[in-house]
């Protein structure tokens, strides 16, 4: 069951009530108005007596139609000399086109939509982007702006002394997101640690959707893929943490609570 927000439900109810009131107030009104110009004299004669439907036609409309008919009759008499055949011919055609009971159309057959149209997508439960999505995005934007501003007020970005080629800091560390690679450098040849492993890693990451042929996105069907990715992410997270916090002078292993932090952002 879909949750309908309270204000929307109320609005829908009001609209429904209004529509029903309108329907009760003016049934057949439209029909009378649209029929008006076409009614032949014979039909017009029967209209006032034809029971329920006629009684619901508002009085002013009936009056207008009667006046129009009177005018038309007068006109038909006046130009009769000029075009004597025109008016009767039109009346005859109109009466011939209507079927029994005054119907102007009939139902030939009912074609169900599925038999002709190929319905590829089912209707989905959707909401308007405005306001439902834009409000969330705006709140997120405000949050991240506020967070960076407040954080920046209290914590200053590091600016060490001027770059000096003759003084190598100990330890020298890469930016934190490359510290996993620098950590690998302690275990492998630089070509393997700095190029081969990250290269293969990114390549495999790009190929992930083409390797993983499993069409399901349900976690219970994807245990292997999820395990593999989690191991992969944890591998880098642990390497970055070791490189960031557990490496001291000479990039030797230290405990931060003993030797202190050797880490700048």
């Amino acid at each position: 069951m879909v949750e309908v927000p309270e204000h929307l439900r109320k609005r829908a109810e009001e609209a429904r009530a209004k529509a029903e009131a309108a329907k009760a107030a003016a049934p057949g009104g439209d029909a009378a108005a649209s029929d008006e110009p076409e009614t032949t004299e014979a039909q017009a004669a029967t209209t006032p007596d034809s029971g329920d439907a006629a009684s619901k036609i508002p009085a002013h409309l009936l009056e207008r139609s009667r006046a129009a008919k009177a005018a038309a009759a007068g006109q038909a008499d006046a130009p009769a000399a000029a075009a004597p055949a025109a008016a009767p011919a039109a009346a005859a055609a109109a009466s011939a086109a209507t079927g029994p009971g005054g119907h102007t159309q009939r139902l030939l057959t009912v074609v169900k939509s599925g038999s002709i149209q190929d319905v590829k997508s089912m209707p989905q439960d959707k909401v308007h982007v405005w306001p439902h999505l834009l409000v969330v995005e705006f709140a997120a934007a405000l949050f991240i702006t506020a967070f960076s501003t407040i954080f920046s007020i209290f914590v200053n970005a590091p600016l060490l002394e001027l770059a000096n080629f003759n003084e190598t800091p100990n330890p020298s560390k890469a930016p934190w997101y490359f510290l996993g690679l620098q950590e690998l450098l302690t275990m492998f040849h630089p070509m393997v640690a700095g190029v081969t492993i990250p290269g293969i890693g990114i390549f495999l990451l790009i190929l992930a959707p083409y390797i993983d042929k499993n069409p399901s996105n349900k976690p219970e069907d994807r245990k292997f893929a999820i395990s593999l990715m989690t191991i992969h992410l944890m591998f880098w997270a642990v390497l970055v943490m070791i490189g960031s916090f557990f490496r001291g002078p000479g990039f030797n292993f230290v405990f931060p609570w003993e030797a202190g932090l050797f880490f700048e952002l």
Partner: protein
Amino acid sequence: MAIDTDDDIKPPLKERLSAQMSKLGNDIQGSQAWSSIFRPGSIFRKGYTDSPRNRSYVIMNSVMYHLHPVKVKRHAVKVSYTLCLGGLTFFLFILLTITGIFLMFFYRPTAAAAWDDIYTLQTSVTFGLLVRNMHRWAAHLMVLTVFLHMARVFYHGAYKPPREFNWVIGVILLTLTLLLSFTGYLLPWDQLALWAVTVGTNMMGYTPVFGDQVRFVLLGGFDIGTDTLLRWYVLHVLMLPFVAVIFMAIHFWRVRKDGGISGPL
């Protein structure tokens, strides 16, 4: 003429003022200039009502239509599904562009001037320290949100058909983000910048076969120097953002072409 005040039945000044003000507001909202700026559906347009039709127009008649459809699946607006990570990344990119433009006014990319410019920015420019802090922290935050966004997409299986190619673009954007952050790392020209970049570029120099050439191109010479600074500055403020914006446009466009964000699990 002199006695005009006592039995004058003008309403009090406050009411007359507010009537004038509302008339003025009405005139402005009714003017052609106003309605040419705020298209139908704009919440600032005269006679805006919260109707489904106007909710659609808000998107259709604004630049937002390039980013969002009129309606999205109901589950797509759940913050608990996306955690807004992609949107936050994009917003951080905008924040970084704005703060970065500010920083460009006060910075010269030469070995002789860079550090002094940053120092002067921090000490003598109004809000200079705050804006530099924001740029730095937002950059680290963006690397983090890109990583988390990637993990989120993987765990939801959102890289599966028809979204394979958008995943590829996403991985490219991830590497572009890392490169953007890394090129910016050198610009303060302090000890942290110099030696972090030394570690990083030494690693890239181990690229098989043409490692020396890669290093030469990156450094603009055999060693890090003022040429490197200029080169990385142009990469950081112009080339990489340009490439990233193109890939972002394709990324967002593909999200919509592939049927919005992936379905619920």
